C-alpha cells in the first residue's frame, strides 16, 4: 500500500483528531513535519544501527561523548546544549528531544516513543512515493539487539527488511550469528531482493573477497555506485570463532581502487556519476577516510550511533565528500536528495528525520508481520520483573544507569568486589515509573556470547584492561578506535585523562577508598568474554540480571560510578 502525500496528511490529521497520544503542542505545524519538498533527481534513504528494534522505543542520546585530538568540539562530539546550538535546534522542541538527552524523561512523555518498523515503513513509503528514483540503504546492526532477533537468529529482522524495501545493506553484529548464517541469509532470503555489500572482508587464506564489494544502479538514468564497508574490526571486537576464516580491515587502498574503477567505467560502458559508501566504520573513521580517499561523493555512516542532523563536508585531494551518521535504534530516517547535473552533484538537501511514532500511522502490513513474529514469545517477553523509579539509560562514554544496574547485579549475584560490563551503545531506555520486562532485559543483553564469569585478576591486569579499552575509545587517530564506549566498572573508582598517552590515561584506581595494588588479586565479575579460551559455560547474563530484578522488585536511584575526569574542562562533548 502506498500513501499519497494527501492521504498521509489526512492520516496524520485523523490521528490528531482522535487524540492518539498527541500532545497540545504537537498538532498545529506537525503535518508539515514530514512534508519534505521534493528536490533534485535522485534520493538516498538511509537508516542504520536499528539493533533489531521493531517497536517504537525511548533511547536517550549521550550526555558524555568526548572528542579527542582533531575530534574535540566538533560533530559528532557535541552533546546537550552545545549540540543544539551548533545545529540551530531550539531547546524544548521535538527535534531537541530526538537529538539530545536534555530533560529526557519529561520530553519523552511529551513527544512519545520513536522508531518502530511499522511507523518507519509508513514514512519510507510516503517519501518514496514522491521520489521515483530512490534507494533505501541499511547500514547494518540490524539483526541483533532484541530477544526475538536473537531467538530467530535475525529472521524477524530479515523479513522486516524485505517488507520495508531495503535495497542494499552492509553489516557488523550480523556476523556474530556466524559466517554460515550470514551466507545462508544472503543465498536464500536476500537473493534477488537485498544486496549485502562489503569491500573490506576477505578470506584469511587467499584474500578472496567474501562479499560483493559494490553495486551499480541506474537511478532515474543516473549511474550510481554504492560500495559497502562492513565494521572493520569485527574479529577483534567479538569472539573470533564467529568468522574464523574472514579477515577484516579498513582497506583504504582497495576502496580507492574501487572508487577509481567505478568512476572510470568498463569498456564501452560509462562510469558511475555518483559514488556512495555505505559505511559501518563509525563517524570518526569516516571523517578521516573522507580526507584521504578521493572520488566518493557521500559516506552514509553508522556504527557510532551519532545522530548528526547536518552532513559534514570533508575536503580531500580531488574535491570533497559529505559524511553523515544516522543515529540508531530506528529513531531516524535520513533523506539525501541529490540534484545531479552534468554528471555531478550540483546541490543537495539532507534531513535526518526523527521517526515519531505519534506522528506516523503504523503501516498495516508491517504491523502484522511484527505481531506474527512476536506472537510465539509474547508471554515470556511481557514478564514484569521490576519497576524502575528512575531513568535507566545506557549510552555515554563511561557509564549509564542501566549499566550500573547490571554491574550491581553482577557484583551481588557473583559475590565479586569489582564488575565489568561492556560499553555497548545499544539498549532501550526506561522512563521513571515504567516496568522492566524480560523484553527490556533482552534489549540490553541479547548477544550470542552472553556468558558471565568471575576471574581473579591482578591489579596490574585490571589496569591493562582499562587502558586497552580506553585507547580503543580515545586514541587520537580514529583508525585505531573501535567505536564502542569505555568498559563499565562497578565497585572500583578510578580517574581518566582521555588526552593522555596510551597506557597513561588511567590512574588512582581504588577499591572502597584503598588503592588497588598491582600485585594483589581481585575478584572481578563480567560478561560477554571476547578472548579465546575463556570459559563459555557461565550463566547467560539475562538470566542473572532477570533474577536480580525479580528479587529487587523496585529499582531506586543508584550512584553512578564514573571516573574522575582529568583535563576535559571546556570540552563540548561533556555536560
Amino acid at each position, binding site marked *: 500500500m502506498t500513501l499519497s502525500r494527501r492521504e498521509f496528511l489526512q492520516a496524520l490529521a485523523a490521528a490528531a483528531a482522535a487524540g492518539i497520544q498527541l500532545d497540545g503542542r504537537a498538532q498545529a505545524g506537525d503535518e508539515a513535519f514530514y512534508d519534505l519538498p521534493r528536490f533534485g533527481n535522485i534520493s538516498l534513504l538511509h537508516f542504520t*544501527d536499528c539493533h533489531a528494534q521493531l517497536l517504537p522505543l525511548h533511547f536517550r542520546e549521550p550526555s558524555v561523548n568526548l572528542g579527542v585530538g582533531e575530534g574535540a568540539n566538533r560533530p559528532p562530539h557535541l552533546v546537550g546544549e552545545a549540540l543544539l546550538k551548533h545545529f540551530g535546534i531550539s531547546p524544548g522542541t521535538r527535534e531537541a528531544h530526538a537529538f539530545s538527552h536534555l530533560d529526557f524523561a519529561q520530553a519523552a512523555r511529551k513527544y512519545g516513543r520513536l522508531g518502530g518498523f511499522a511507523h518507519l515503513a509508513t514514512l519510507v513509503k510516503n517519501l518514496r512515493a514522491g521520489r521515483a528514483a530512490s534507494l533505501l540503504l541499511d547500514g547494518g*546492526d540490524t539483526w541483533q539487539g532484541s530477544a526475538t532477533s536473537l531467538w530467530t537468529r535475525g529472521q524477524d529482522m530479515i523479513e522486516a527488511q524485505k517488507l520495508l524495501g531495503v535495497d542494499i545493506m552492509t553489516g*557488523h553484529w550480523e556476523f556474530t550469528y556466524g559466517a554460515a548464517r550470514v551466507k545462508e541469509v544472503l543465498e536464500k532470503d536476500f537473493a534477488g531482493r537485498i544486496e549485502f555489500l562489503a569491500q573490506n572482508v576477505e*578470506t584469511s*587464506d*587467499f584474500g*578472496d573477497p*567474501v562479499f560483493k564489494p559494490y553495486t551499480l544502479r541506474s537511478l532515474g538514468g543516473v549511474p550510481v555506485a554504492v560500495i559497502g564497508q562492513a*565494521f572493520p*574490526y569485527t*574479529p*577483534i*571486537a*567479538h569472539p*573470533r570463532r564467529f568468522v574464523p576464516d574472514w*579477515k*577484516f*580491515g*579498513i582497506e583504504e*587502498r582497495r576502496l580507492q581502487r574501487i572508487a577509481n574503477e567505478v568512476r572510470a567505467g568498463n569498456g564501452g560502458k560509462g562510469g558511475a556519476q555518483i559514488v556512495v559508501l555505505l559505511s559501518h566504520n*563509525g563517524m570518526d573513521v569516516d571523517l578521516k577516510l573522507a580526507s584521504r580517499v578521493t572520488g566518493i561523493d557521500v559516506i552514509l555512516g553508522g*556504527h*557510532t*550511533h551519532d545522530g548528526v542532523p547536518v552532513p559534514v563536508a570533508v575536503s580531500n585531494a580531488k574535491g570533497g565528500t559529505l559524511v553523515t551518521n544516522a543515529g540508531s535504534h530506528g529513531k531516524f530516517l535520513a533523506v539525501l536528495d541529490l540534484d545531479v547535473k552534468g554528471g555531478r552533484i550540483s546541490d543537495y538537501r539532507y534531513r535526518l528525520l526523527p521517526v515519531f511514532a505519534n506522528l506516523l500511522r503504523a503501516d498495516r502490513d508491517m504491523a502484522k508481520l511484527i505481531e506474527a513474529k512476536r506472537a510465539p514469545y509474547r508471554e515470556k517477553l511481557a514478564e514484569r520483573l521490576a519497576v524502575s523509579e528512575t531513568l535507566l539509560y545506557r549510552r555515554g562514554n563511561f557509564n549509564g544507569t542501566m549499566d550500573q544496574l547490571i554491574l550491581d547485579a553482577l557484583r551481588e549475584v557473583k559475590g565479586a568486589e569489582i564488575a565489568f560490563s*561492556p*560499553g*555497548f*551503545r545499544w539498549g532501550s531506555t526506561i522512563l521513571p515509573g515504567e516496568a522492566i520486562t524480560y523484553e527490556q532485559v533482552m534489549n540490553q543483553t541479547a548477544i550470542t556470547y552472553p556468558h558471565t564469569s568471575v576471574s581473579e585478576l591482578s591489579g596490574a591486569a585490571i589496569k*591493562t*584492561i582499562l587502558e*586497552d*579499552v580506553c*585507547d*580503543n*575509545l580515545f*586514541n587520537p587517530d580514529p*583508525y*585505531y578506535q*573501535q*567505536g*564502542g*564506549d569505555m*568498559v563499565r566498572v562497578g565497585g572500583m573508582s578510578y580517574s581518566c585523562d582521555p588526552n593522555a598517552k*596510551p597506557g597513561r590515561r588511567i590512574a588512582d584506581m581504588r577499591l572502597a577508598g584503598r588503592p588497588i595494588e598491582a600485585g594483589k588479586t581481585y575478584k572481578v565479575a563480567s560478561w*560477554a568474554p*571476547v*578472548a579465546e579460551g575463556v570459559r563459555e559455560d557461565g550463566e547467560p547474563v539475562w538470566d542473572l540480571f532477570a533474577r536480580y530484578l525479580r528479587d529487587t522488585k523496585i529499582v531506586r536511584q543508584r550512584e553512578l560510578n564514573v571516573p574522575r575526569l582529568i583535563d576535559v574542562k571546556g570540552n563540548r562533548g561533556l555536560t
Partner: protein
Amino acid sequence: MDARRREVLKTGGGVLALAAAAGIIRPGEALAQEWNKAAFETKSVAETVKALGGSGSTPSSAIEITAPDIAENGAVVPIAVESKLPRTQALAILIEKNPNTLSADFEIPAGTDPFVSTRVKMGETSNVYALVIADGKYFHAVKEIKVTIGGCGG
C-alpha cells in the same frame, strides 16, 4: 571464492613440499646468505640497523607497508612491504617493541621485484619499520600496529 584455484594451489603446495622432502630442493638452497644471528638478537631499531651494516636510515615514501591498523591476532600479523627504490638490495621488518627487534630479513637479488609478504608475531602495540637497503643506502617507512585485547561497544 575460487574453489578450483584453491585446489590447484593446495596440490601445488603439496608437490613443492614433496620436492623438498625428496631432497630435490634443499631447505638451505633458497637462502642467499648465512643466518645473521647477531642481527636477530638485537633489542632496538638502532641496534638492528647497525647489525645490518648501516649507521642510520632516512624516511622514504617509496616504501609501502601493507598491514592492519589493529591486528586481528597479535600472534600472526600479516605484513607486506614493497620498495619502489631503485636497486633495492635488501628489505627487513623490524618490530620496535618485540623482545627481539628484527622479525625478517630478505635479500633481494638483482632483477627481483622488491615485494615481500609475510606474517610476524607481535607482543604488544608497536611501531613496525620496513628497512630497505638500496644502492648501498638505508631507508625506512614506519607504521604503528595496535595489538589489543578486544571488546566492543557499537
